[in-house]
């Protein structure tokens, strides 16, 4: 009987082994096939006729599905008006191997799987998550893009990149650049002071220009019943602090700390030019003491420690918030939600009041949203074709024709009818769809200074020349459209923000987590959140800050500062 059992077990095991073997060999077979199909790169110049590559060159890629992208007429990422345009007018065939949603991070997971399974990489793809990008950079499977960029990028694109050299920083390893940053306009990501204009008017107040005036307005906003419901249920100052003190696009707290001269959670140069961690600057102590005082006076919500982005937007929508920081689109969202229940409510953007001792600081976003990663084994043709494609999009900054991309935008982003442009969702057959989401980078091409110039002119409601108007071309805007009053407020906010751009502090540390960070960051962060929160809640006296700083430094903070500066020295030129 023992034999029987063994026989059974053995046959079972053999069967299993066989299945797994066949599975493995199947995978190997595929890989081999792929490698064979890949021609070895040769130095060659593409044959370009009237801006079109002949014969057509194929670029393979994988795509993250943008949750805000829409499609019509049965189109997909694989095949749509833009990919057809690229193939027909540029001779560049964009072949999407697979696409996966970014919203639930499954795109990110698939990228990591692609890397760990040793699957052949597509020619290029976009990564927006820094730890994914870093994994690819560390893997050594990416092309050092510097040479190709110098050789093939157009002057316009180079000029756009040269404006923001720090955008390259996160992608530099050992002095080599391993990805091409996807730029974004940063103006507008800083906070102005948003104030409920209707409350100001009702209480006959002026927008605050100093810290004292700010306190006066705050006091009135909680004690004089600005919403007129007879209850003391308003919050004068709102911000998010549940799991971070900076980084909430609505409910940003950086400007509040900035009034006292420092920004927590951010690395920026101190007096000696070396990067310092804002959280341990002595100014933070003053800021915390003041915020704690405001909290005690009821200017700030009792449950402020629970406020994150969602909670802040919810409070704004319910019309209980007097003042807050937020990006320039605050009135579009969550402002529009507030208007739905309270049509007379209105936030107006004001310049930040002058801080203590003339100090002011606030955060500004990094100049990139992600990057394009290129496979080390990309063929020379495909590489050149990619630059040809990207240069064509950057041409909008040289063009005098806002309708440059009519070929894929007409009937999608807008409709031209009887000489006028229509953006109305209901008049465009099949609805308005943003075709810039179909491009490789999934966004408009950005040349910050030119885009800003055009945006500011638009905000001032000045006449734009055709060349200036063309700056908006890749985003599907070909004329000035002021039909949405909430977007007009956004433009106004941009204008207000741009007057105080000397206060902007970007994140200077863009490298991968350093070794001490990996082991100590959580501890330090928790210590900081604990101390700051308890000081704000008055459970600890502001002097607790001093012992926090000492502990922070001795528990790894000093080492991290050293490592961060080593990184900074390595990328700074």
């Amino acid at each position: 009987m023992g034999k029987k059992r063994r026989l059974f077990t053995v046959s079972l095991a053999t069967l299993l082994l066989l299945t797994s073997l066949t599975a493995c060999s199947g995978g190997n077979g595929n890989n081999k096939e792929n490698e064979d199909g890949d021609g070895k790169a040769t130095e060659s110049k593409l044959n370009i006729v009237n801006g079109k590559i002949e014969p057509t060159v194929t670029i393979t890629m994988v795509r993250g599905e943008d949750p805000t992208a829409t499609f019509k007429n049965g189109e997909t990422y694989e095949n749509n008006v833009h990919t057809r345009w690229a193939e027909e007018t540029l001779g560049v065939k964009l072949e999407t191997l697979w696409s996966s949603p970014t919203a639930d991070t499954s795109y990110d997971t698939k990228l990591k799987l692609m890397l760990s399974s040793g699957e052949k990489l597509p020619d290029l793809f976009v990564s927006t998550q820094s730890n994914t990008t870093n994994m690819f950079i560390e893997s050594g499977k990416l092309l050092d893009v510097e040479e190709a960029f110098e050789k093939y990028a157009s002057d316009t694109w180079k000029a756009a990149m040269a404006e923001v050299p720090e955008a390259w920083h996160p992608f530099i390893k050992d002095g080599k650049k391993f990805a091409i940053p996807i730029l974004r306009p940063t103006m507008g990501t800083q906070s102005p002071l948003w104030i409920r204009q209707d409350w100001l008017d009702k209480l006959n107040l002026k927008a605050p220009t100093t810290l004292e005036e700010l306190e006066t307005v705050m006091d009135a906003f909680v004690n004089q019943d600005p919403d007129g419901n007879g209850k003391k249920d308003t919050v004068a100052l709102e911000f998010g602090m549940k799991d971070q003190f900076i980084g909430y696009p609505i409910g940003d707290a950086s400007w509040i700390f900035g009034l006292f001269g420092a920004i927590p959670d951010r690395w920026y140069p101190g007096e000696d030019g070396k990067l310092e961690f804002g959280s341990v600057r002595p100014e933070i102590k003053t800021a915390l003491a003041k915020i704690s005082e405001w909290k005690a006076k009821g200017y700030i919500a009792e449950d402020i420690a629970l406020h994150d982005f969602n909670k802040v937007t919810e409070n704004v929508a319910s019309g209980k918030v007097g003042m807050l920081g937020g990006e320039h689109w605050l009135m579009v969202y969550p402002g529009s939600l507030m208007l739905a229940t309270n049509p007379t409510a209105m936030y107006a953007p004001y310049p930040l009041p002058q801080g203590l001792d003339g100090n002011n600081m606030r955060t500004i976003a990094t100049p990139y949203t992600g990057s394009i990663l290129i496979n080390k084994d990309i063929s020379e043709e495909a590489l050149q074709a990619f630059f040809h494609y990207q240069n064509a999009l950057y041409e909008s900054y040289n063009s005098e024709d806002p309708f440059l991309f009519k070929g894929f935008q007409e009937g999608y982003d807008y409709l031209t009818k009887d000489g006028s442009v229509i953006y109305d969702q209901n008049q465009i057959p099949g609805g308005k769809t943003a075709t810039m989401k179909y491009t490789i980078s999934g966004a408009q091409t950005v040349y910050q200074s030119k885009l800003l110039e055009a945006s500011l002119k638009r905000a001032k409601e000045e006449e734009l020349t055709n060349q200036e108007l063309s700056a908006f071309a890749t985003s599907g805007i070909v004329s000035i459209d002021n039909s949405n009053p909430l977007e007009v407020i956004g433009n106004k906010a941009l204008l207000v923000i741009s007057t105080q751009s000397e206060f902007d502090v970007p994140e200077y540390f863009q490298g991968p987590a350093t070794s001490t960070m990996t082991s100590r960051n959580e501890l330090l962060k928790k210590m900081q959140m604990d101390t700051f929160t308890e000081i704000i809640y008055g459970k600890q006296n502001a002097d607790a800050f001093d012992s926090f700083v000492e502990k922070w430094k001795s528990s790894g903070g000093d080492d991290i500062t050293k490592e961060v500066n080593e990184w900074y020295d390595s990328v700074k030129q």
Partner: protein
Amino acid sequence: MQTVIQQETIKKKRERIVRRRDSWHLYLMILPAIVLTLLFVYVPMGGIVMAFQEYKPYLGITGSKWVGLDQFVFLFEYPDSSQVIWNTLRIAVLKLFFGTIATLTFALLINEVRKKWVRNSVQTFVFLPHFLSWVVLGGIFIELLDPKNGLVNQLLGALGFESIFFLGDNNWFLVTVVGTEVWKEFGYGSIIFLAALAGINPALYEAAQLDGANKWKQMWHITLPSLVPTIVVCLTLSLSQVLNAGFDQIFNLYNPLVYAKGDIIDTFVYRIGLIGGNYSFGTAIGLFKSVVGLILIVGGYRLAYKVAGYKIF
């Protein structure tokens, strides 16, 4: 005596062999299930190796550096580890204790309801919260428990009590977490007890009634003893979960003010492992939790067998 038993076992063994010879096709039928289980449950366990490595996705399991027990050393040397483990145990045990009591009480009470529609509708209502995600409930509870405008505190205010910051005070946070979890799950948990109640022989109750036992006595002497095996099974199985204090719930409700009692292993792993992309550390903690869970479940099973004399498996 001895020989009789021996003879019987030999006889049984022979029978079993015969049965096996006859039923090879039955074994063939479970083969796919075995293969699938091996393939998708046992093979992936190989990933445990990551806990002993400095895992880098592009190097894979075969290429990553072997670091032995470093990840575990790191876990236990980390200044906050003991606090986090204690918090987890405290919350899990409280949830287990109050959860079982609430579930049991509810099952016993609803079992006494004779009107079928009352019974069904009540059951449906207490059942529903189980299907709501903590992301949704988190938002609702934050709103309800708001120290200023929340419904609960307005009610307390109307009754003349001081307002309580439920989610900002360490002790109240514990109460809230345990209370809301019990509220969410007691309806669902009662199913198994109701099934056990339905299985009790009605003849026992008839006999008790004849002997003049009232409802209370029937419950005490018939219902509860009949439920003991089920309770033991449930508790034993729950023991393996004792290091899971409920990530979804805590993550949506906690904040720096309640780190002292509210921060649990999973939220800690989330901050350190997932945000930091430290896979090996995440695996190490997962393995640690599984091992503790295994020890507890085996221990609990042995104890249940020794003390109460019930065999579960």
